């Protein structure tokens, strides 16, 4: 065996130069920006004994906060996936006056300071607010309940779905739908059997981004949530509370659980998306 063939098949021969340099930069950058703070988190957590860690994490208040954060983030991402897809459909497929303005409005939740969004939503949905006063007679209370958290998370997550799916749907060949129709498919069948599978990977990416954003959201939620422990208290808020009580290890323990859970969920979504994409294009 010659030296070259016994080397790891790590680096494929390529016409694109600079693999070593760019990989080095990438790893350094990722290390500095992402891994360093994360490992600090784990190191801080490791100061706790295992029993203590389990006690903190399995405390009723912690469990409930985590449940609220992940459950509502998941629900909000689902809502955004459905309605975001409809918004994308309208923006891509139809021409109407004011389309440019609607398109620009989508990005507002990106740019708006989350606290502003939280205050605005709270005043809207409070019992004496414009929307809240309409819902109150129906017995629906939004502000200061988990429903309010959902509203805030939907608000901040929408642009993620729209902006990931929009270019994919815009690039979708119109001929595919013509072909389906010529083969006798109804509009509904075309949508379900042809359009949806084609944008499905993008929809999943949008879902993952909206979900990730919602799990960590703090600013807009704390105004509208009411923050009742065990009812409408989110995990990021609980972390802040622990920090204010100088219980740093407690805070990092909760953060670690959030981090690991988020990572696992995103990894699952990523696999799902790869699988959906593979089914569509390159097989081998």
């Amino acid at each position: 065996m010659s030296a070259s063939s016994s080397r790891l098949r790590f680096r494929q021969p390529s016409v694109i130069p600079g693999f070593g340099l760019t990989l080095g930069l990438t790893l350094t950058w990722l290390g500095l920006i992402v891994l360093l703070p994360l490992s600090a988190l784990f190191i801080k957590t490791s100061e706790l004994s295992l029993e203590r860690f389990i006690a903190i994490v399995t405390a009723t208040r912690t469990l409930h906060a985590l449940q609220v954060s992940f459950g509502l983030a998941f629900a909000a991402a689902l809502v955004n996936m459905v309605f975001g897809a409809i918004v994308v459909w309208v923006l891509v497929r139809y021409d109407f006056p004011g389309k440019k303005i609607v398109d620009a409005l989508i990005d507002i939740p990106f740019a708006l300071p989350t606290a502003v969004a939280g205050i605005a939503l709270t005043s809207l949905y409070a019992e004496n607010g414009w929307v809240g006063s309409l819902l109150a007679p129906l017995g629906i209370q939004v502000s200061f309940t988990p429903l309010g958290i959902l509203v805030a998370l939907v608000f901040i997550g929408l642009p993620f779905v729209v902006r990931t799916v929009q270019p994919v749907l815009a690039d979708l060949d119109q001929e595919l739908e013509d072909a389906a129709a010529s083969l006798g498919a109804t509009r509904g069948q075309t949508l379900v059997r042809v359009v949806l599978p084609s944008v499905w990977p993008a929809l999943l990416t949008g879902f993952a981004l909206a979900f990730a954003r919602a799990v960590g959201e703090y600013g807009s939620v704390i105004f509208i949530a009411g923050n009742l422990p065990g009812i409408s208290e989110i995990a990021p808020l609980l972390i802040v509370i622990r920090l204010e009580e100088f219980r740093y290890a407690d805070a990092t323990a909760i953060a670690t659980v959030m981090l690991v859970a988020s990572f696992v969920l995103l990894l699952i979504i990523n696999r799902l998306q790869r699988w959906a994409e593979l089914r569509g294009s390159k097989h081998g």
Partner: protein
Amino acid sequence: MTIDVVGVTKRFKTFAALDNVSLTIRTGELVALLGPSGSGKTTLLRIIAGLEWPDSGEVRFDGEDALSRSVRERNVGFVFQHYALFRHMNVFENVAFGLRVRRGADKLPEAAIRAKVNELLHLVQIDWLAERYPAQLSGGQRQRVALARALAISPKVLLLDEPFGALDAKVRKELRRWLRHLHEELPVTSVLVTHDQEEALELADRVVVMGHGKIEQVGSPGEVYDNPATAFVHDFIGETIALPGEVKGGALYLGGRALGLDPQGVADGPARILARPHDVDLADPSASAISGKVLSVRTFGPTRRADVQLNGSSGPVVVEAAVPHGQDLAPGTEVGLKPRRYKVFAA
């Protein structure tokens, strides 16, 4: 199925894609719509399919109004230029699509679908690719899948939009013959859109030559080549030598010299004399009315062509003349040209 297109006009904003087009396609025919891009041939095909609606005019299938039916209800097989295969389905499912979307009384049991799809895959000779996805296929294979998918709904009309446009020359030629063969085996009326004259002439029973949203000529491949109805058809199909002449008092002139050629009934005024390069003989310059100077001689394969510069009525004109084998022609020499067959059109 007979297809009647009557007085169809279609405008895109101010551009007239089709201008009062009428055409009858007979049962079992293979008709080629031939024209340069922008001639309206694809628009006409899409109107027949029901993917586009005309601003005015009628389309009838076997005498029945087709415009009141949507593309779904017309039962036409359509093969798209870029195949439009469903990327997320394998070959089998692509072909089965038209059968799977059927509802109610038309719905087929799974076994019948499998049998039909396998039969079609066998027909287009790609049974062994059933499990592959479109991204794993070559252009020619995709073309066959697209065709099998279109045939799955047992259409009486098969419409093909530039079916060989994206294939390389060798595969194109092979598929062309195969398609002709397939058309003869199936009880189907086929309409093919192409900008490739060779394809249209080789494949079609009748060729419809289109230009600028109008039909220029309809005829058999032989007719449109040998007897072009308009200067446009002469220019577009086959190679053409064009001389800018003039008709004066019933005689043809080129650059002030009488040619002694028949003006073919063209009225006085500027005219174009058109001929195929192989219908023009080289002659002694002193004995022929048309003469000019050889600029260069080129050889490609079995043919040799000379660029000859003539003196037209408005400045010099360069034409390409066929040079017979065994004749030496040095650049700079004077040659005469004698058209054996030619066409005269008013310019």
